[in-house]
């Protein structure tokens, strides 16, 4: 999806390939080339991060961290032989997974009893339906519902689903990005679809019972 401000970018930039734009930005500090690259990929990169994190503020931080690294590391670590966006996605993926793992690491359930409020970790957990309520309001209902189900998948299955469905990434690239074999990536997708099918069925059953 392209932003409205893409009108400021000359037409010839829109016709260039990613690698040409990257070359212009690296060698000639061409800001328009960088803007065109952002316009092409920002929605998919952001969607991937947001779908994994499900929180606007954190997604914003990780998105900014990703592109700050892209800008500062492009001269040192990006090899122009490879696809630029695959390199960017690797940075986004690593930053996202780092965040998820840090979150897991820092929640110490057993020792989190709060003397003041006399509550334990579970009591302080927000109601599931209220998580990211503000964020969900900006999304359409079906996307919001799908993201809610996807967020319940194990991390590695969620990653494959999002990379494939948001980013339309081939399984070969997903396998490279996540450091697994292509068969493992395909297997994770199969389990993810089976798990989601169960969730959809349960949801459907609930709705039927409510009626």
């Amino acid at each position: 999806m392209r932003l409205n401000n893409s009108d400021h970018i000359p037409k010839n930039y829109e016709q260039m390939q990613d690698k040409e734009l990257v070359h212009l930005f690296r060698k000639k500090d061409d800001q328009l080339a960088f803007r065109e690259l952002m316009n092409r990929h920002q929605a998919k990169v952001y969607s991937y991060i947001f779908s994994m994190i499900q929180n606007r503020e954190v997604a914003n931080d990780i998105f900014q961290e990703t592109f700050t690294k892209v800008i500062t590391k492009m001269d040192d670590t990006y090899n122009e032989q490879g696809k630029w966006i695959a390199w960017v996605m690797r940075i986004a993926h690593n930053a996202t997974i780092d965040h998820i793992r840090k979150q897991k690491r820092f929640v110490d359930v057993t020792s989190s009893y709060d003397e003041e409020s006399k509550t334990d970790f579970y009591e302080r957990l927000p109601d599931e339906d209220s998580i990211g309520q503000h964020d969900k309001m900006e999304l359409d209902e079906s996307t919001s519902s799908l993201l809610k189900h996807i967020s319940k998948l194990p991390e590695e299955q969620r990653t494959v689903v999002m990379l494939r469905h948001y980013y339309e990434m081939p399984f070969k690239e997903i396998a490279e990005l996540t450091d697994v074999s292509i068969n493992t990536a395909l297997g994770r997708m199969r389990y993810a679809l089976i798990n989601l099918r169960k969730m959809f069925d349960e949801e459907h059953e609930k709705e039927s019972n409510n009626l």
Partner: protein
Amino acid sequence: MNKKDIRSIAYLYNEMDPSEKLEFERDLNKDNDLLIEVESLRNVSEKLGKIQSVEPPQELIEAIHGIADKRNGTAKHSYWRTTLYATAALILIGMTSGILLLESSDNNSPGETEGASINTPILFDNPTSTSTSINRSGKVSPWVDNNEVIHFQDRLHASENAATDSIFRKSFQKLTPVTDPAESRSLPRNLHLTGNR
């Protein structure tokens, strides 16, 4: 997970080559359970296809553009700094070379040569270096080396004999020839002079 299990996913997401795809479709026609699994997975996959992409906030994009602009500024700054250092280095090299050249030319200047010729007790030419010190312009230019030895050496042309003889005559007023000039009449003419009488 065995290969059989992942075939349905590879088929759904077009990850099969044409021959594998053909074989899998043949199996689908024969195996109803496989057909049901593929269709149910396709149903879930199609639902996932409805996920809409989420746009990042515009202010976030502007902030990132700002970071990219700063990188541009840093690169320019770094370019100017490099240019400045290169220019300073060139000036330093130029000045050093200039000083060395000046010192070198001071040692060879005719004025000092004259002074040296007065104070130097023994003056003589160096026939071995004749080939390297020939004055291409045809003029005879006496010079003093680091050992304060005055040198007269050149390839003389008939037209310049008068000027050379004038230098010789002036030298004879203050210096004594080391060797008999008559012995060195043959070309190249060698003249050894000394301050001792």
